[in-house]
């Protein structure tokens, strides 16, 4: 045995140590490498869950805020409903799919099923959108390969057709196309809807009261039946803020089925139509005369004989005294006296006054643009005389009502609005007539209802101190003249006088004869009275206590 030299032994030990170090270094590098790989993998994994399930683009859907009435009751809201789609490439037996789906789908969607085979090159085809969950479950239970479901946002209108014209409608993508729904898109903006999540957006609070709205529509529907009218329109407005508590145009429309009315259905006659409204315009004639110092309430003015301007003769339907007071122009509704009063205006004075009251400009509400007023090209004596009693000028009822609010609210212009809190704030309101003139008009309107000779007697509701004015206007016949048998009757009123809280406006289109008459005093006035009796308690206006027994009797007569 030869002993190894110490240097050889030392060299061997060094080599062994170097080998161990190399092995450990490799192991450590591998371990830390694995950790690094895992970290990167974990980091990426959170973003790797996106799956492209379809190759064809899916149409967009938008979420919308709910719309509630002034008391928080739902008028419109989003719900999620399943939509059925097909991936034609995965369908095994097209005939089976067509047969089974046709047995449960609505006819309109079933009719599209034959197009399925032709679309085999596509990976996504809608079968039926926004179906009920029960129907989706039936389809699911068929177990058909290639048939799938997606949640989609659908606008629901739980209150039904109530306030349909005002609420408006949305399209299949849930975009607003009419009414407040469209307004919401403009001011609150659209948001892309998550396919399977309901939105938590803050509700838009409307100024409408669901209960008052129902009362209005019920009363108008009764009037349409009783007087066999072609249509009926009405509103209830806060005279101070312009907030509209109820607004209806009958025949009404259902927001859930916009395809039935948006393009060609009944229009919203409250905003989309401009009409000659007749004698209710005398309120503005008198207001302008008082405001411009042309007359005082007690001044006498000739109501007879008839007034002749060129070939035209202006008459009254009843025989009035030779001279009546300016106040009696409202109470007894004299065309002749109103026309004579208007002829006292200087050049441009009449038009300027009506413009100041807000009757001649453009107007827009959240329910959409309002029909522009139609005014004569030449504001000559004949135009001035006929406009004095509401002929020769046509305005949308909502615009007229907004202007009329100033007659009874101290003279302040209001902006009609369907959104709670959106009226003109009190500090920045514009005064368009003096408080004195406004008070005088309020007294005249009250007298029109309380006087035995007043044309608005049947609008009286005991305890509510109703004031107002009737209007009966011949309807244009489409040519240059008027249809002698068709009229628009109306009643503009306010309660409780002399400082009213609410204004009511009722317009009946083409009411038929009752007892040989079709004047506003016998159809529009009692309709307005019934409306006030119905909605006043809902809106928190209670009758005066001392007349409670009379109130009860009077109200029952009106409501029943």
């Amino acid at each position, binding site marked *: 045995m030869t002993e190894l030299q110490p240097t050889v032994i030392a060299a061997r030990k060094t080599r062994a140590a170097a080998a161990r*170090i190399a092995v*450990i270094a490799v*192991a*450590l590098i591998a*371990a*830390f490498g*694995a*950790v690094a790989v*895992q*970290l990167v993998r*974990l980091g990426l994994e959170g973003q790797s869950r996106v799956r492209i399930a379809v190759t064809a683009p899916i149409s967009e859907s938008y979420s919308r805020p709910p719309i509630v009435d002034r008391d928080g*009751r*739902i008028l419109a*809201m*989003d*719900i*999620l409903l399943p939509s059925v789609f097909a991936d034609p490439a995965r369908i095994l037996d097209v005939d089976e799919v067509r047969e089974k789906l046709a047995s449960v789908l609505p006819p309109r969607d079933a009719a599209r099923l034959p197009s399925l085979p032709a679309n085999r090159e596509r990976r996504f085809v809608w079968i039926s959108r926004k179906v009920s969950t029960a129907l989706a479950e039936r389809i699911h239970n068929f177990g058909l390969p290639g048939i799938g479901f997606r*949640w989609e946002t659908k606008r*629901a209108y*739980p*209150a*039904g*057709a*109530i306030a349909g014209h005002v609420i408006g409608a949305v399209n299949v993508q849930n975009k607003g196309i009419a009414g407040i729904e469209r307004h919401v898109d403009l001011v609150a903006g659209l948001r892309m809807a998550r396919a*399977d*999540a*309901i939105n*938590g957006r803050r509700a838009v609070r409307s100024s409408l009261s*669901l*209960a008052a*709205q*129902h*009362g209005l529509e*019920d009363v108008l529907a009764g009037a349409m039946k009783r007087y066999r009218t072609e249509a009926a329109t009405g509103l209830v407005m806060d005279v101070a803020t312009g907030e509209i508590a109820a607004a209806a145009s009958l025949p009404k429309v259902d927001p859930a089925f916009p395809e039935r009315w948006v393009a060609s259905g009944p229009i919203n006659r409250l905003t989309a139509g401009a009409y000659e409204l007749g004698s209710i315009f005398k309120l503005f004639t008198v207001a302008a005369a008082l405001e411009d110092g042309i007359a005082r309430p007690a001044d006498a003015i000739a109501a007879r004989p008839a007034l002749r301007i060129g070939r035209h003769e202006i008459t009254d339907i009843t025989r009035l005294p030779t001279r009546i007071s300016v106040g009696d122009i409202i109470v007894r509704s004299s065309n002749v006296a109103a026309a004579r009063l208007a002829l006292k205006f200087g050049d441009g004075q009449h038009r300027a006054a009506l413009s100041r009251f807000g009757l001649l400009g453009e107007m827009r509400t959240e329910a959409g643009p309002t029909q522009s007023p139609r005014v004569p090209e030449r504001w000559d004596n004949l135009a001035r005389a006929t406009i004095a009693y509401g002929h020769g000028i046509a305005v949308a009822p909502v615009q007229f009502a907004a202007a009329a609010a100033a007659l009874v609210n101290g003279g302040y212009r209001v902006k009609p609005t369907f959104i709670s809190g959106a009226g003109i704030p009190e500090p920045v309101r514009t005064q368009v007539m003096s408080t004195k003139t406004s008070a005088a008009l309020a007294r005249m309107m009250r007298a029109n209802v309380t006087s035995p000779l007043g044309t608005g007697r049947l609008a009286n509701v005991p*305890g*509510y101190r109703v004031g107002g004015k009737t209007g009966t206007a011949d309807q244009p016949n489409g040519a240059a003249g008027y249809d002698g048998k068709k009229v628009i009757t109306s009643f503009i009123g306010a309660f409780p006088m002399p400082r009213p809280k609410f204004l009511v406006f009722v317009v009946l289109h083409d009411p038929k004869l009752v007892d040989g008459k079709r004047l506003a005093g016998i159809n529009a006035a009692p309709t307005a009275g019934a409306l006030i*009796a*119905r909605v*006043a*308690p*809902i809106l928190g*206006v*209670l*009758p005066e*206590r001392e007349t*409670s*027994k009379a*109130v*009860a009797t009077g*109200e*029952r007569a009106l*409501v*029943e």
Partner: protein
Amino acid sequence: MLRFLTVGAVLAAFASAAFLYVTTLQTRMLEADLRTARAEQRELAREIATLRAERAFLARPDRIGPLARQLGMRPALGSQFVPAPNARQTAHD
């Protein structure tokens, strides 16, 4: 000394790997729970929205009105409201 450091580093590497594995596992489980909870939340929100719509639909005036009339009820009249001080007396009348 170097040997201890080396062994320590190896053990630390294994411990880190084990910790990472456990943490990853727990995270995945929590993520799964979160996904389930979110799905349940969406499902409940869907159901709540549907129930709210159904409740509003059932309470709509067009439906309640005729039913109330069938039961002999009528719209409330102003005369049926009395100021609070008179309420007791009216109730006793």
